[in-house]
């Protein structure tokens, strides 16, 4: 083979270039290990999370994953947050909201001056209006039955609160928005919040000139009416951008997609592995965090989380709670374990039809339910001091719970009372089919204990357990007489109450319908005074026990653990879990 001179020269040059490019640019090895925390003073922690991050828009249908909300909590400030006692705490350094009129209910939201996104753009009219437009579903005119119209923003939250408001007024400086409700709305405090998505980014990304154009668009586009759907092409592009543009597992090349308005800003992301957040230098409107850097690592396996904590790779873990996990955590020196009741609770509901149509039969059955034994066998291994939940509505540890329990009639069912049950049955032997998720060992345990106890009083219990993929669809289908399953309590707000216990409402599977309770709930959802709300909720709670609705069994236990050096952690049953007070964390 012969090569021409040119090709030889090219070959030599190519090899030389390759060899040169094979050298690292800086003299490597000179300065390893001084990066990262170089200028750090407040320290850094690494937190293990179960799910990997997928979206900078945690309010959208696709981004509605717990980890996205937690990152949003770290990188966004809002008018309020929820503390570990499930109370709403206002953040007046960010902005204020006040009820300016109770009839009609009018709430004015004002963002403080100087509050801005991390690119310097202030949070004002556009952000307030966009947040309102998304959370109110104001423009949606979809009619699912007729298959006409459109749902613009695929918002994962509830629109029924802000859905009651009309197009809000914006003050001249753009920092105050006034919402007027067509009827009083009980949960008005948590109805509105600033979204993750900056309006100026959504505006330009959605094909508009700037934020002002978006303000203009929202103020002028016609309100949605499912009866007469209309096309809103401009809003459609904006909504599509909002729905999809913020979903990513890698750090976007455009920083506008991950702007921060809170204490931290995302610095680095390794897909499906980790994410690093550092201080947002501009932030000055809320509690100042002590830590300089927070790294989140995604570890799905509970045992892997525990061992990573033990090996010092992570400082805080939030594993799926189980007796094994707790045991292995307790075996580790130098860590703190935080335990508490989560917001999900198991309960047994009795149908108000069939064999349980008679209130006496229902109450007789309730008398047989051995709640102590169930708690002991299911969550005893996690928390030997755990007690049954004694309220259908209030969560353990809240003020309302303590007020409700002595008066709601739950005391009667504290211990199984077979004698009373036998007396009420009066020799009858009703056949009860209990439906539950047979793939969930906790539910199987509960069923076994309940069935055993009920049979002592004369009930004939039929095992109606269904596989994990079938039981959910069977809810409310009338194929059973009683069912054991779990609710996830929202923690804050009363709007969920009629959802479960209202006559014919969507999640009311057992056909409970009680005039007194219904009247209380009708009033509850239009009452904005917290004390009155509590009174009304207690009325509903009491009626649930009196009429033989069924019984709440227990709240699940959550476990967090952390290196002893990390201080300021408390257990929090709420949505953001241990993160709720991240600004108070410090490293000793």
């Amino acid at each position: 083979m012969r090569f021409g001179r040119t090709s030889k020269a090219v070959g030599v040059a190519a090899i030389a270039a390759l060899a040169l490019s094979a050298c690292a640019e800086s003299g490597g090895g000179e300065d390893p290990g001084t990066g990262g925390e170089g200028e750090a003073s407040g320290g850094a922690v690494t937190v293990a999370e179960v799910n990997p991050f997928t979206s900078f828009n945690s309010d959208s249908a696709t981004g509605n994953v717990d980890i996205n909300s937690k990152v949003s909590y770290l990188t966004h400030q809002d008018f309020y947050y929820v503390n570990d006692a499930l109370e709403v705490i206002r953040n007046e350094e960010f902005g204020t909201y006040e009820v300016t009129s109770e009839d009609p209910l009018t709430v004015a939201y004002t963002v403080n001056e100087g509050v801005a996104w991390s690119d310097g753009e202030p949070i004002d009219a556009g952000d307030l209006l966009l947040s309102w437009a998304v959370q109110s579903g104001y423009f949606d005119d979809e009619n699912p039955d007729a298959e006409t119209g459109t749902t613009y923003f695929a918002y994962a939250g509830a629109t029924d609160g802000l859905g009651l408001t009309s197009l809000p007024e914006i003050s001249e400086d753009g920092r105050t928005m006034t919402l007027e409700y067509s009827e009083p709305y009980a949960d008005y405090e948590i109805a509105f919040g600033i979204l993750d998505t900056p309006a100026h980014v959504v505006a330009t990304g959605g094909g508009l000139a700037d934020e002002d154009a978006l303000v203009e668009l929202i103020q002028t586009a016609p309100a949605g009416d499912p009866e007469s759907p209309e096309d809103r092409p401009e809003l459609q592009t904006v909504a599509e951008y909002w729905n999809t543009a913020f979903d990513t597992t890698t750090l976007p090349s455009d920083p506008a997609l991950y702007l921060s308005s809170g204490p931290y800003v995302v610095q680095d992301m390794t897909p499906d592995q980790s994410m690093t957040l550092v201080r947002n230098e501009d932030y000055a409107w809320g509690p100042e965090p002590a830590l300089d850097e927070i790294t989140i690592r995604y570890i799905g396996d509970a045992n892997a989380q525990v061992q990573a904590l033990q090996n010092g790779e992570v400082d805080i873990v939030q594993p799926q709670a189980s007796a094994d996990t707790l045991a292995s955590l307790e075996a580790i020196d130098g860590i703190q374990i935080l335990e508490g009741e989560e917001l999900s609770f198991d309960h047994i509901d009795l149908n108000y039809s069939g064999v349980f149509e008679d209130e006496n039969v229902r109450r007789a059955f309730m008398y047989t339910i051995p709640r102590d034994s169930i708690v002991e066998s299911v969550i005893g291994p996690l928390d030997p001091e755990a007690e049954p939940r004694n309220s259908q509505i209030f969560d353990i540890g809240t003020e309302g719970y303590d007020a409700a329990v002595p008066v709601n009639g739950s005391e009667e069912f504290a211990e199984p009372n077979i004698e009373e049950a036998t007396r009420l049955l009066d020799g009858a032997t009703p056949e009860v089919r209990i439906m539950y998720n047979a793939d969930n060992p906790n539910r199987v345990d509960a069923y076994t204990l309940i069935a055993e106890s009920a049979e002592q009083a004369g009930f004939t219990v039929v095992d109606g357990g269904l596989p994990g993929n079938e039981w959910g669809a069977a809810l409310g289908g009338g194929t059973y007489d009683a069912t054991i399953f779990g609710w996830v309590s929202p923690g804050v707000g009363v709007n969920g109450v009629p959802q479960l216990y209202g006559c014919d409402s969507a999640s009311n599977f057992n056909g409970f319908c009680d005039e007194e309770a219904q009247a209380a709930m009708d009033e509850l959802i239009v009452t904005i005074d917290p004390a009155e709300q509590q009174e009304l909720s207690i009325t509903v709670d009491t009626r649930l026990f009196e009429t033989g609705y069924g019984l709440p069994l227990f709240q699940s236990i959550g476990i967090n653990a952390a290196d002893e050096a990390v201080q300021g952690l408390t257990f929090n049953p709420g949505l953001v879990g241990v993160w709720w007070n991240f600004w108070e964390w410090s490293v000793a």
Partner: protein
Amino acid sequence: MLTYIVRRLIAAVLILFGASFLVYILTAYSGDPLADLRQSNAPNREQLIQQRIDLLDLDVPPILRYFSWVSGAVRCVVPFALTCDLGNSVTGIEVTQLLGRAMGQTIMLVTAATILAIVIGITLGIVTALRQYSGLDYGVTFMAFLFFSLPVFWVAVLLKEFGAIGFNNFLSEPNISFFATMVCGLVAAFLFYLSTSGALKRRLLWAAIGFAFAFGLVWFLDLVGWFLTPGFGLIVVALLSVGIAYGVTLLTAGLKNRKALYSSLIVVAIGIVAYFAVQPLLDRGTLLMVVLLGIATVLVGLVVGYFMGGYDRRQNMTAAGLTAFLMGFLILLDRFMQAWPAYFNNNRVNGRPIATIGASTPNLEGDFWVRGLDTYTHLLLPTIALMLISLAGYSRYSRASMLEIMNQDYIRTARAKGLGERTVVMRHAFRNALIPLATLVAFDIGALIGGAIITEQVFAFSGMGQLFVQALGRQDLNPVMGVFLITGIVALVFNLVADLVYSVLDPRVRVKA
């Protein structure tokens, strides 16, 4: 041949269609995608359910949904077609993007384990076959089956407990007690006893040598604080390299072939000079540079072998090339060890180098060597776990195959011709014994891409197995099918490759056109 391949490929396409349909339908009916929402008491429960239905197209029956998926997926398989569309996951991320990343993670996790398992497994198999029914044979067989039957999640947890947490604790105060040193010595003595043959006296002598060697080594390493500042240094590199030169020559050409031996030794001499020459260059190391240097090293070996001449240049070149490569590897290892203190004291690592989760330390800054060590410390445990459980397959297959070959007529013929034992084993038996393993290796490389579900879970690697399992749990069909598609295609292709390779390797096997 060509018609055979075409026929196989057409069959493969039909199989893919059939299998993907089955998998799709099975997955669709395997769970309730709305399960978590059904027990939600959120005020907007209906709306959330509707959103999920829209995202997953649940209002379309699975059979029809399959066809809409296939219409997008087909474009990925047909070459020169339109853009590939495997759909989005339920979190709005493109499946093609998810697959690309998951494949990278999986390949990183499994490659080293598979290569090591193949090399070590086959070596063990051959050695035990040559020493059939010896203590060594029984020992290896026992260990192989023991590891084979251990559940991987349990092995992984133990490895983390002792290999990572325990070892890191040890590193914070690296003092080896006299007792531990004794145990190391005794274990070595036992291993030496098992692996030698002959009269009891001879074996005991070897055991004593083994004991002295291990005891001395551990004591010495402890004394010089080697665990915190590891390294070979020139002397050890040189000594090991001379050993390698002799070993490689023994296996490839026989020590009687002086030309081969001298080429290997010359390469070692060049290597010792090069050790000094490349150090400043290595300080600026990159992956590309290491690869180029590796190629250059092998070339030097080949050239030396070529110019030594003699009656069989090829033997010289093989011996010298292999020696050069292995010595280069030693020098590389030595350079990595030099970077160890920098890695160990990095404030992201903080004196606890061996990791239990993930593929890298987040926010680690450092040069090529530090990052290389970081990958090493993260891959070490999963690689060991995966390797241990797959050793058995390879060692048993290669042992059986070798035993069969050693009883063949042509081996007797070779011996009758007066060939040396080395030539008989290495030339006539070993090569032929590898033929049946070609199928196994091809399958295993195919299976690489499929991921190791449990290992990935335990070591928090987000590879193909995790992608599959998590999507399955959420009833998110697109990623499930994406993983299936890749695994299915790779399995079919490697099946075909195995058959073709077999016919190339073994002239007695012919594919029917």
